[in-house]
């Protein structure tokens, strides 16, 4: 099994490397570069050439890519074209803020989704199932900015319970973000919970109809013991992958939510950087987001491998 895990790890690292190359190539392909962003209207002729030579932009693309990649491994992400500061420090705070947001969402959403998913699966077609499943469809399909807008209206403007906009700066400590973080977390949680709930529910339903659960029933195993020992360990395995996928989605959804609530996170920063054509920053943020996505999927796959007896021993029997 160690071999399988190592192979999967290698695959993950390879994917990150590939993504970094893709990001670099995409940014290269776009018209303009760091110098056109810095010089803006003055970007032409000798000034442009000088700038490029200074920043090393006249070197071949492959060399620049390798430099950048090597730097990224050392946590040196270059300098912002917009304000000349080191990207690593600009990004550091914001990354932490986004992780706070994502972390709260996961902490709230995953247990809730698992619990509700299992309950609706067990009480299939019951009143609670119908209501929750319908609610899940709504929560999943409505765009985040729409639910954000509605929630702001209801809880911030109408009921005046929580602030509708975050006014804290990027480098503020985590505690300063409460209670402003409440609504963004609620919006993100709604969507994530809905996705995971649906998958867990259908997995539980499928497991309940399996031959081995029927056999457990016919062995005289009491209901709750059957659920805990026979159903859940098998039904929740696919949930791991869905949670990983939703985290991936979370990275995209987080961007919109951060913008709507003015939350000083990585996603918000990314949009601003794109608007400002600050390409080195865009590159850096893209790499970070991709690495997180790949890392999460990697962890999910490895966890599944460890927990699924069938995968664990497959090698042993054949090898």
């Amino acid at each position: 099994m160690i071999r399988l895990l190592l192979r999967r790890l290698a695959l993950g690292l390879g994917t990150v490397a590939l993504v970094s190359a893709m990001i670099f190539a995409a940014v290269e392909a776009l018209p303009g570069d760091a110098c056109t962003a810095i010089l803006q209207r003055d970007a032409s002729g000798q000034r442009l050439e000088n700038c490029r030579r200074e920043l090393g932009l006249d070197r071949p693309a492959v060399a620049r890519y390798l430099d950048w990649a090597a730097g990224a491994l050392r946590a040196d992400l270059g300098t912002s074209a917009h304000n000349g500061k080191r990207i690593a420090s600009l990004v550091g705070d914001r990354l932490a803020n986004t992780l706070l947001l994502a972390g709260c969402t996961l902490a709230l959403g995953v247990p809730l989704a698992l619990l509700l998913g299992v309950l609706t699966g067990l009480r299939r077609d019951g009143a609670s199932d119908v209501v929750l499943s319908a609610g899940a469809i709504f929560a999943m399909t409505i765009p985040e900015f729409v639910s954000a807008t509605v929630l702001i209206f209801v809880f911030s403007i109408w009921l005046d319970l929580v602030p509708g906009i975050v006014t804290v700066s990027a480098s503020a400590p985590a505690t300063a973000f409460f209670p402003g973080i409440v609504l963004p977390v609620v919006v993100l949680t709604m969507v994530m919970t809905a996705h995971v709930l649906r998958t867990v529910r259908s997995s539980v339903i499928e497991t309940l109809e399996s031959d081995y659960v029927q056999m457990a029933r016919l062995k005289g195993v009491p209901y709750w013991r059957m659920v805990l020992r026979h159903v859940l360990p098998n039904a929740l395995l696919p949930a791991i992958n869905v949670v990983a996928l939703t985290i991936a989605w979370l990275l995209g959804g987080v961007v919109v939510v951060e913008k709507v609530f003015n939350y000083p996170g990585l996603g918000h920063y990314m949009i601003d950087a794109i608007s400002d054509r600050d390409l080195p920053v865009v590159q850096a943020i893209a790499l970070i987001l991709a690495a997180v996505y790949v890392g999460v999927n990697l962890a999910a796959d490895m966890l599944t491998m460890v927990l699924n007896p069938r995968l664990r021993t497959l090698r042993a029997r054949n090898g």
Partner: protein
Amino acid sequence: MTRGASRWRGVARSLFSRPSGAIGATLVLAHVALAVASPWIVPYDFKAISAAMILDAPSVAHWLGTDQLGRDVLTRTAMGGRQAIVVTAIATPLAVAWGGILGIWLGLAGGRLDDVLMRVVDAFLSLPWILKMLLIIVTFGAGIGVLVPTLAFFYGIPVIRIARAATHGVVARDYVLAARARGHGRPAIILREILPNVLDALMVEGAMRWSWMLLAFSSLSFLGFGVSPPTPDWGLMIADARSFMAIAPWAGLAPVVALSSLIVGINLAADALAKALGVDRAAAPVH
């Protein structure tokens, strides 16, 4: 082909027999009809500004009130879906077509090319959709000529995965083996044996793609990167209305209801369609 037609009638019937399918399909059809017919049935010109009637509450003259520039909200809401629906309705079949063809081909070919391309697909999908869209829009603008191919390209990529998986499921079947044993050529096998059985999964996926595209389109407009004023668009309207929600909630609520009802309708219909066609939708990739 009468067989094909009668199958579709059966599918339509079973779609409408489920309450979710009936509601969903009705919502979708209503929106499409509205998008087509609205320029002719709306009471006002969507551009007509009126300084005097800013943020008026709903009244007999303006059933849904007016927005911050005095424009009639009902008119703008009714027409707010046109751009979105036109762009996405063109891009969706394109996405399904290109992703489907490549996916089926990879599912059959296998081998090194398949391995390499799937790695590339995985890498590509690790970047947030909004990053990819914004990079393009910021460089090339947000006109229909840019959005349609961009959406079609980006949203076709997850379709590759689905088509490939569906093809893998079909290729292992005995009837494909039987066709190979008879000596039919590859293209004949793809067209006659594999495609009809993969098409169902692709259709359901196509409906879902449409809903994700609408979501992306309206998110972009909301953020200010999509449709430009004065063209009415739900995303844009919601963004504009945000600042005035305390005093004039109707200006934001109307497009919220419109957009949500369309997307929910598509999802309900897609779910019911999947059940009617017998397509298994476990853990379909999100974006």
